[in-house]
């Protein structure tokens, strides 16, 4: 499929970049990205991916838009209060770019449906708000060999990492276990600066686009830590753990299971 005049115009600032060009823009148009969560992180990630012309964007979210979301979840609005978040985001992204096929998946992700939901996508984006789902998404991506761009936010701090199964580390190589319940405040209690998911989400969208066009170095075997108060970006090394229970030499996790508790951080 060739680009129309209008598409050439729309994507001209991409196409003019030697690292993207018409070829890279084609790859973007053919890419299929699954976003899990259409909240603080999912909104900016999806917004930029839709603007970039990513061909298919799946959005998994089972929640409805609430007034307290609008402080940061920029794909939703007063017009979609009470609407399912995947539907609300789909509306926004399609208004921005009709080239993009946005698929709203109004389900809660779990060990039963995750493999099926992921299987047709090239890249997965984690924008969820709890540890059990983060570990589940990681394990599923390792099992299906899907690149995963993971982002997390709390108060004034964010973390980003890019997981490429078979090549680099996974989330369990980084943090072996989720914290036990009770030791951590729930996300609702914790609070978050509204613009923080914008910063972290934009970094995740950047990682996704780099993976699609195959340029630059992904945040593989690294964790990027952003501290908004100290204006500090730090990268630390994340080696692949040979003893990792899911991607190591002798994996002990070979089936997906749901962890019950939900918590945010220490």
């Amino acid at each position, binding site marked *: 499929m060739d680009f129309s005049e209008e598409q050439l115009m729309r994507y001209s600032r991409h196409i003019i970049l030697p690292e993207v060009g018409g070829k890279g823009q084609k790859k973007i148009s053919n890419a299929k990205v699954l976003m899990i*969560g259409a*909240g*603080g*992180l*999912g909104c900016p990630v999806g917004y930029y991916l839709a603007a970039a012309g990513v061909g298919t964007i799946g959005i998994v979210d089972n*929640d409805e838009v609430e007034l307290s*979301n609008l402080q940061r*979840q920029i794909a939703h609005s007063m017009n979609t209060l009470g609407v399912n978040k995947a539907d609300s985001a789909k509306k926004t992204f399609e208004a921005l770019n009709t080239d993009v096929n946005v698929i709203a998946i109004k389900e809660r992700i779990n060990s039963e449906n995750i493999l099926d939901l992921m299987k047709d996508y090239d890249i997965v984006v*984690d*924008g*969820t*708000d*709890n*540890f059990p789902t*983060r570990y589940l998404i990681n394990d599923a991506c390792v099992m299906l060999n899907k690149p995963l761009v993971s*982002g*997390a*936010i*709390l*108060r*004034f*701090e*964010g*973390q980003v990492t890019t997981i490429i199964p078979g090549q680099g580390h996974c989330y369990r190589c*980084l*943090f*072996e*276990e*989720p*914290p036990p319940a009770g030791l951590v405040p729930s*996300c609702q209690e*914790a609070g*978050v600066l509204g613009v923080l*998911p914008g910063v972290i989400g934009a970094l995740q969208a950047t990682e996704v686009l780099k993976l699609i066009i195959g340029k630059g170095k992904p945040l593989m075997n690294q*964790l990027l*830590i952003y*501290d908004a*108060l*100290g204006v*500090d970006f*730090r*990268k*630390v*090394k*994340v*080696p692949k*753990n040979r003893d990792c229970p899911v991607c190591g030499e002798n994996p002990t996790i070979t089936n997906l299971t749901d962890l019950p508790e939900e*918590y*945010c*951080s*220490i």
Partner: protein
Amino acid sequence: MAVKVKIPVPLQRLTQGKEEVEGAAGTIISLVNDLDQQYPGLAERISENGKLRRFVNIYVNEEDVRFMKNEETEVKDGDEISIVPAIAGGM
């Protein structure tokens, strides 16, 4: 000179809001205990019975101590230590 330690946001209320503190050179676990003397409660949040908790990582400069000598990893004056807990918020 001392060891500089970056405190993550969730633990900064134990350090009176300070994002960076100083501790004594030595092993990681002695550093954690030294910090706990200055900021009571810190050790318990990141370690248990002298072992680092599995959802908190400590980096010496950019290196994860789990891939060095873990709690026994030596840190020297001028090293930059980062305490990095897993965080999960996205919404």
